[in-house]
């Protein structure tokens, strides 16, 4: 392997690093492909040649017509600089209707490969979700649910704490927070979880819950003092009072329509 090819390969994989860093949290477990590594002229030549010779079957964007979508082609994905693709194109797969291109030069193959790698990049590069595009519910039904079956009005009011809430959050974040108000993106901190610890001798300590595991519970009491109690098989007794418990209980009850309608209603509270 020559130094220049090695360098190209190294840069290509380094490009993977940069693209990976920009991906969303959800995608982070999925690496990004080797991005196209050719100059614009090469890609343009490849595109022209592709459209003239291959576009009829594979579509002018290479995403498939009578012939398959080439963004998924292993012959493309596993190709470097047209070498593997070139030998594939020279012989074709006649039994599957893929003609041979015996006159193809290595330069042609390299150009076509460069273009096809841009197609792979484009196919896998997701247009991100538009958080404003998720409103599909009926605001009237949402309002009825808010004041009825959802019992949201037990704690919330469109003229009180929810005044202008539709302007405070984008719709997707609003919907997320309805389901999980302790999740990310809070503009006002959620009310704390309170805890009472009753020791075997009857003494109690109460305050804000800082942390709880099977083996300790930590709280901050009214005077701001942090206290940690060891736990052993549920001793001492720990009572948790979470003012947002109703949101957890709703998880098993919501229909998607309830959720969509509520979101549509809340989005309108500008």
């Amino acid at each position, binding site marked *: 392997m020559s130094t220049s090819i090695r360098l190209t390969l190294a840069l290509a994989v380094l490009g993977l690093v940069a693209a990976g860093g920009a991906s969303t949290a959800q995608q982070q477990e999925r690496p990004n492909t080797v991005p196209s590594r050719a100059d614009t002229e090469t890609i343009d030549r490849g595109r022209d040649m592709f459209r003239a010779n291959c576009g009829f079957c594979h579509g002018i964007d290479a995403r498939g017509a009578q012939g398959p979508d080439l963004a998924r082609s292993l012959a493309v994905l596993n190709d470097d600089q047209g070498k593997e693709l070139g030998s594939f194109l020279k012989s074709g797969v006649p039994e599957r209707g893929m003609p041979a291109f015996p006159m193809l030069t290595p330069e042609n193959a390299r150009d076509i490969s460069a273009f096809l790698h841009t197609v792979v990049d484009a196919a896998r590069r997701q247009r991100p979700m538009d958080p404003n595009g998720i409103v599909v519910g009926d605001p009237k039904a949402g309002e009825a649910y808010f004041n009825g079956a959802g019992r949201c009005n037990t704690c919330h009011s469109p003229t009180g704490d929810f005044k202008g809430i539709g302007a405070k959050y984008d719709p997707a974040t609003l919907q997320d927070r309805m389901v999980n108000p302790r999740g990310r993106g809070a503009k006002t901190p959620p009310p704390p979880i309170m805890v009472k610890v009753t020791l075997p001798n009857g003494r109690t300590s109460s305050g804000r819950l800082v942390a709880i595991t099977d083996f300790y519970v930590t709280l901050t009491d009214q005077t701001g003092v942090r206290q940690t109690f060891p736990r*052993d098989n549920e001793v001492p007794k720990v009572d948790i009072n979470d003012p947002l418990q109703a949101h957890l209980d709703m998880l098993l009850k919501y229909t998607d329509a309830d959720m969509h309608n509520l979101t549509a209603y809340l989005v309108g509270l500008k």
Partner: protein
Amino acid sequence: MTVRTIGILFAAAALSVLVHAQTQLDPSLLGKPPVDAWPTYHGDYSGRHYSTLNQINQSNVKHLTLSWLYRANTNTQGAIGGGAVPEAVAFRLGPGALAGGLLKATPLAANGVLYMSAPDHAWAIDAYSGREIWHFFWRTKGGDHIGNRGVGMYGNWLYFETPDGYVVSLDAGTGKERWHKQIVDVRSEYFTTVAPVIIKNHVILGMGGDALDVPGWLESRDPDTGEIQWKWFTTPRPGERGADTWPDAYAMEHGGGMPWTPVTYDPDLNLIYVPTGNPNPVYRGDARKGSNLYTASIVALNADTGKMAWYFQSSPHDTHDWDATQVPILFDATFNGQRRKLLAQASRNGIFFLLDRTTGQNLLSVPYIESANWFKGFDDHGQPVPNPDKEASQGGALVSPNNGGGQNWTPPTYDPDTGLIYMNAAQGYEIHYKWDVDGPTFGSAGHAARAVGGLDTSLRAFDPLTGKAKWIHKYQGTEWNPPRPELLGGLLSTAGRLVFAGAPGNFVVAYDPATGRQLWHAGLTAPMSNTPITYMLNGRQQLVVAAGDTLYNFTLE
């Protein structure tokens, strides 16, 4: 030369022979309950993660104490090198960063040595002292460094998979590379994490990677030469059985189904049980209408030929990345009055399946968590029928479990003494959205899943014959943000009437399997990240767990 020096030389020569002999793993150990060794990923072939040892038991587990810890050495200076390229190509985690700093591998224990691995790294560690014997570093070409689940061992040879798609064979005594073979091409965004399982003279390997709609398969290689013995593709080709569950040849050839976790095996039936991964495109099923065999399935293959004996699909037409890559646990029991060879799986999708492992016949299908809401019921074969209303939608579909699943890749344990399966199970929720993108459906394009909390995570003692929980130990404090099951590690049960499991807050805990009472715990520096093992070393029972970048060895005081 004096008599004395001759004597020393002779002793040294004898010792070297002895040391060499000691690195050999007796292959007959692989099919037996692990005692003096932990010779394969699951301990034995059954996937039970159960040990017959009882030196550590309910009466003395309180006295379990740390004997040493080993912090993963990723310094490549002084490491034995290998690789398909002259220099390691930088990747996003940085060379030597493990899988985000986590040791996920189950170590093997043989002849007083532990064999541990991480992406690009393998170590031999003296089981008495925790000192490193050798360190092997693989110069990577790239690939997803999400994890490495362990090494396989055959005689004096080790096998492990690399993020850039190779299987490497090392000399267990020296750590020197014997050969490497390419399994998959990293340019198609495959990566390999599976712990190879050695079955007779077969090294069973799989792969991962679902970014680009590429095909998946399981393969068997010769342990000596590394040559391929057979391949079994996880999706059919036109004309083959199951092809009618795909719209066309193109969809099946790009249908994914990566087998990315280790297999289990029944030596009497000579069947390998393969849990397969999700189909591709991952979340949008419009380009692959049909049930998409044999993705998200449990498949029984002949160990010598790779020919399929039967299949059961845990998630027909999966559109939530459920996979079915949870351990197919093998045990025998009397079910409805009949003694049967059974296979149990608590699948990522929240449903528990009990099968007859000779025929694949479904005996029981039941949700093992209360929150699973994505399916309508079960078909005649006991396979869940997905609810199309719970596929990703423009307005969002609220789905449980979340992407972490009710279970994930970390193994539960089956305790033959209680007849129960123990698992850390999560009840998370996620909103699945979809939107329009250019071109045909591809990879994960046009889909997002936003995690929105959940009910809880709990340790469950589950009766596989009735489908009911015997007891549930809920982890308080996990209500709003249930940890993904694999972030608590795997489980181990023993004849000492103990179950070992990770718990939130970076603990490893010993439980009474009958009641769920906590008998012992130790705080670690990070959540338990692998599956505990136990074995006898010089007459003393050991417990080994990993958390973060550190291996902890516990013994009785």
